């Protein structure tokens, strides 16, 4: 508006008033803009500190590092020179002790304060941190030198701190730590910081939650490890029982045969001959020369001697078998005893000899069931393995092969044992039968613990064999063209020396 529709006002006082108005408008606009700028800046700073602490909290850091970085970031944000963390004492859930983590922008200036703080513990409700713990909320003290609750000032030492601010690290409703910060001047309450501190406390609470979860996982892991070790020992024990069972079966057969032989022994004939001679002792010469029976007696005794010697030879053979089986049982038991300390000794061994030992342990059973055995041993040198465990595996494979042949016509039962090279650094010890074979769907499960195709099986032998093979740096594999087409189990073991090309 002007005095004249055609031009500006000419009255100087009005012009001055107008200039003043314009000037005030400018100042107000500037003030508004400044307020906006300040708010924008502060918000940006809030976001930066929250973002920084969130990143710290999310990073896979140790708790100490996380606390220290949080202190650094908060002190950088606030410009306060002192920051410190308390943790809940492990001895008493109601007590706070120094975490030993500090931000100090002047170590010398605040050394007395640090020493007194680290030497002081706070019960719930006591002092600045105790108050925070009790309320679960941030506490602001404008000037600790005028606050009776500030215990650390009671020692009469110059602490160089005035304004104080502390907030809880919360896990749900539980205070798990307290952060405290100090300024060298009295400080008025800053609501923005109080709000920010709540967010920071919650973020740090998640770190504690994560660490707790990690500790719980670690504890569970240790329990699992122990359980697994115990299960491993149980497996070994089970393996021993299984193998001892196999040997005992053979041993029983030997005993049975020996018993049958003993029962059928002609030794009683000798007794009858002796009785006859005692009866005729008064006229023994005449009896042997003139009596029809007496004349046959020397020949009879000679034949009987042959028979008894043959019987004795067979019994001695049975006893040798018994002794061998007993020795094998002893070896198995010794292996098991050794397994509680270390799983056997790795030696350089002749694979053919290992096979022969295993065959011998199964010989009776194979013979009894009319199973033809075919050997094909390539001269590869020695393998590196644990003798007893290889023996257990091969005995188990031969035993299984025998079982697989039971439904096959007796004249067609055959097992082929092979030693062949594998990739120049391994030896393959294979046991192939022409028995019932294995269906593809079963093939994948055959080495699993508890899986068996036998009505009286435990599903342990092959599982334990596969584990043992792996322990020795080898493996156990299975090939089968399907039901009715036989199966080949191959134990692959590392050669002591690779085969030269």
């Amino acid at each position, binding site marked *: 508006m002007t005095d004249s529709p055609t031009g500006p006002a000419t009255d100087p006082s009005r012009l001055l008033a107008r200039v003043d108005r314009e000037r005030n408008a400018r100042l107000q606009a*500037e003030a508004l*803009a*400044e307020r906006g*700028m*300040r708010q924008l*800046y502060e918000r940006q700073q809030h976001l930066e500190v929250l973002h920084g602490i969130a990143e710290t909290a999310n990073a896979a850091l140790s708790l100490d590092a996380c606390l220290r970085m949080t202190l650094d970031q908060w002190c950088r944000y606030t*410009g306060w020179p002192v920051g410190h963390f308390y943790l809940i004492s492990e001895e008493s859930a109601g007590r706070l002790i120094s975490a030993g983590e500090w931000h100090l922008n002047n170590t010398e200036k605040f050394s007395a304060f640090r020493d007194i703080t680290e030497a002081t513990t706070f019960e719930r409700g006591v002092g600045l941190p105790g108050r925070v713990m009790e309320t679960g909320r941030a506490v602001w003290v404008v000037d600790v030198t005028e606050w009776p609750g500030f215990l650390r000032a009671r020692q009469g030492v110059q602490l160089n701190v005035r304004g104080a601010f502390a907030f809880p690290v919360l896990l749900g409703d539980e205070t798990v730590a307290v952060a405290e910060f100090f300024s060298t*001047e009295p400080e*008025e309450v800053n609501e923005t910081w109080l709000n920010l501190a709540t967010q920071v406390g919650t973020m740090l609470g998640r770190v504690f939650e994560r660490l707790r979860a990690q500790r719980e996982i670690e504890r569970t892991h240790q329990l699992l490890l122990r359980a697994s070790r115990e299960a491993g020992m149980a497996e070994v024990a089970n393996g021993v029982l299984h193998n001892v069972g196999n040997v005992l079966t053979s041993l029983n057969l030997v005993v049975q045969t020996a018993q049958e032989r003993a029962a059928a022994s002609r030794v009683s004939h000798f007794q009858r001959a002796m009785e006859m001679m005692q009866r005729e002792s008064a006229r023994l010469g005449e009896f042997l020369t003139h009596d029809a029976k007496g004349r046959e007696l020397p020949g009879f005794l000679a034949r009987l001697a042959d028979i008894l010697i043959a019987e004795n030879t067979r019994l001695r053979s049975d006893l040798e078998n018994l002794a061998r089986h007993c020795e094998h049982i002893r070896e198995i038991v010794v292996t098991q005893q050794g397994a509680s300390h270390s799983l056997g000794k790795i030696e350089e061994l002749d694979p053919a000899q290992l096979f022969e030992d295993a065959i011998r342990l199964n010989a009776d059973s194979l013979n009894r069931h009319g199973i033809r055995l075919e050997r094909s041993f390539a001269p590869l040198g020695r393998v590196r393995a644990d003798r007893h465990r290889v023996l257990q595996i091969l005995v188990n494979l031969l035993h299984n092969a025998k079982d697989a042949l039971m439904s096959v016509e007796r004249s067609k039962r055959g097992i082929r044992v092979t030693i062949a090279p594998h990739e120049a650094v391994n030896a393959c010890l294979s046991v192939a039968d022409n028995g019932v074979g294995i269906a593809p769907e079963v093939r994948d499960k055959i080495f699993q613990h508890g899986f068996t195709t036998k009505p009286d099986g435990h599903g342990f032998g092959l599982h334990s064999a596969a584990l043992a093979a792996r322990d020795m740096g080898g493996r156990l594999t299975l090939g089968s063209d399907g039901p009715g087409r036989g199966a080949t189990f191959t134990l692959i073991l590392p050669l002591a020396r690779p085969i030269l090309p």
Partner: protein
Amino acid sequence: MKGIIFNLLEEVVTEHLGADTWDKLLAAAELDGAFTSLGNYPDEHLFKLVAAASAALGKQPTEIVRWFGAKAMPLLARKYPPLFSRHTSARAFILTLNNIIHPEVRKLYPGADVPDFDFDTSSPEVLVMNYRSKRKLCALAEGLSEGAAEHFGEAVAILHPQCMHRGDACCRLELSFTRKNKA
């Protein structure tokens, strides 16, 4: 240079020497005088205004700058009272320059090229302030110190044993504050 400095200069000159003087200084410096606090203006504009004032008032430019600093302080106290209210002495106030006042300046003026002061507080009587800036406005620092002393009812004696204008790497200001007796 931030517009707030030009605004302060305008206010100081207008308040103490009158609006016409400001108009004359602008005319002599060949500036239009449209400064807003949030704006950014060439340092040269300030030096031209100082030179114009120096010529008009017959005083050395450093004297003009020092006078401006001293007289600007009450205006700053009116404009930003929280920066002053928490202190009871000029020394305590000046010691917040790096940690409080300049961070506040940066809030309003992102990218503000504020000088860094290096304080030596080992003596309770003498506050040593080392100042380094390519603008070499040590006279402004002196004036502002005088203004600060005045604000807190103190007098200040200033020694300036090293000065960038005399070829030193930085200026060293030794400030001794004494409380004025209440009349």
